[in-house]
């Protein structure tokens, strides 16, 4: 299922404003890649360009190439709707649909594909997704309750279940733990470890320890000043980035000297 991503020389614009400049990065299938860097360095913007979610903002566009297993994400025959069905996303704040039950939340993506499913089939998808998201045991008795009644950490795992229920190729996570307590965070980090056997995972995090704990590869983004575009400074094996980075800026950031 999982696919690799190859980004070459990607510029991201909002109107005339160049937000992210010249990113080239390979992302291997079935691995966890973490994006770290100070606020405003464009890591979230870059993440959102990987499933074309940045296009939600009017005037957003990109220059360069993003290849998913060799297929051009921004090719003229590529529909952003299909891109997003292939590449799931989990957001900074848990956002289950408040008007839907837990059950319907998990199936929301399936319903968009407008597949008519038998009850048994949808039951199975709900159970499988919730199990993968490590939430099944906690909610199996209240699948018809609203998703908004869960705790923050549970809601976030519900969102993960919703994202993986359609079996995407890639899972993007935009600071998935920043609104959660340490215990929920650790549950989700364990989950990421399990999910990477099946999915390609890209995670943006402000928490460097988290990047060190969960990721195989780490990419450090930085910007040279206010109003300047964000850049990818360096990318490499996580152990190497955290122990022996090549760029002095990376080292300074990791040691907590700025950011």
């Amino acid at each position, binding site marked *: 299922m999982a696919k690799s991503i190859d980004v070459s020389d990607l510029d991201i614009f909002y109107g005339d404003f160049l937000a992210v400049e010249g990113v080239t990065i390979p992302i291997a299938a079935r691995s966890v890649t973490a994006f770290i860097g100070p606020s405003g360095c464009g890591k979230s913007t870059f993440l959102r360009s990987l499933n074309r979610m940045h296009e939600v903002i009017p005037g957003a566009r990109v220059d360069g190439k993003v290849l998913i297993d060799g297929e051009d994400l921004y090719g003229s025959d590529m529909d952003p*709707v299909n891109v*997003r069905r292939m590449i799931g996303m989990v957001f900074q704040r848990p956002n289950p649909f408040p*008007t*839907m039950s837990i059950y319907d939340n998990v199936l929301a993506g399936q319903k968009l594909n407008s597949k008519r499913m038998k009850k048994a089939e949808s039951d199975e998808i709900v159970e499988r997704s919730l199990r993968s998201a490590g939430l099944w045991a906690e909610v199996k008795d209240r699948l018809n309750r609203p998703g908004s009644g869960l705790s923050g950490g549970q809601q976030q795992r519900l969102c993960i279940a919703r994202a993986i229920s*359609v079996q995407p190729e890639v899972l993007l996570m935009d600071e998935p733990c920043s609104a959660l307590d340490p215990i929920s965070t650790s549950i989700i980090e364990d989950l990421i470890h399990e999910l990477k056997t099946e999915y390609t995972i890209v995670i943006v995090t402000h928490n460097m320890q988290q990047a060190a704990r969960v990721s195989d590869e780490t990419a450090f983004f930085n910007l040279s000043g206010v109003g300047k575009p964000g850049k990818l400074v360096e990318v490499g094996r996580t152990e190497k980035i955290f122990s022996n980075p090549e760029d002095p800026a990376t080292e300074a950031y990791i040691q907590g000297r700025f950011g």
Partner: protein
Amino acid sequence: MSTSTAPDARTKPVQRPGDRVFFGLSYGAALLILLTLAGVAIFLTVEGIPGITASPDEVKSGERFLPYVGPLVFGTLLAAVIAMIIAVPVAIGVALFISHYAPRRLGATFGYIIDLLAAVPSVVYGAWGIAFLAGQMVPIYQWLEDNLGFIPLFAGPASATGRTIFTVAIVLALMILPIVTAICREIFLQTPRLHQEAALALGATRWEMARLAIFPYARSGIVSAAMLGLGRALGETMAVAMVLSASGVVTFNLISPTNPSTIAANIALSFPEASGLSVNALIASGLVLFVITFVVNFAARAIVDRRKEFSGAN
């Protein structure tokens, strides 16, 4: 600290004059609404009861109260419901266009034009209904009778003037469109970005995003907007009185020259010539309208509350 550790009943929390003044003002305003409502209700009841109990030969209509007001209630509800059926889907569509489809500047201009519709006096709508719309509708009614006459709604004979309950409903729909649109637009704009992005990230098209994130979130607001519109349609007087050629029947035939009148229009048309108990009978019909509006609003609240825990407010 001191308030929670000292259970002494005499220690009062600090009160600031600004808070007290504002409390008094808002409390007073709330009371004023209740008093006004109570005043209207009491007036209608006191003045209406003699009309309800009056014997047929004492009032101009020559009927007991219930047979008299029955067709009026029917006409009122029929016109208002048809108006709602026409206006609410259009309003939701227009509101969604303004809030999520149109480029920002076009949407703003469009919203402004819709708001202007709300400022047109109802007598102007009435005049437009008679002078323009009714005439335009005549061939349509003829066509409906010829082709869809087997449906009781369009049984005909088609009105030659076009001044039917259906024409009235269209005028009413136009009149309630701005208020329903404006409220829907505001609620659509308030849908949390998070929920919209959740839908989009699952691969929803824009329409699916509306279905998945916007409509469920806006549900109670849409019902409220529809109820405000319905309230206006139920109570609209001038436009109905001008357009409708009424004859006090009970029929679902929407296109014939014999139409049920509405309570408000009937009061407006009959009041100038009414005297004695006939006036009381008209006021009593007003009481009935008052009660209908009340019931409709409570029903709407009940519908909204039924799925409260799924509303997104928690």
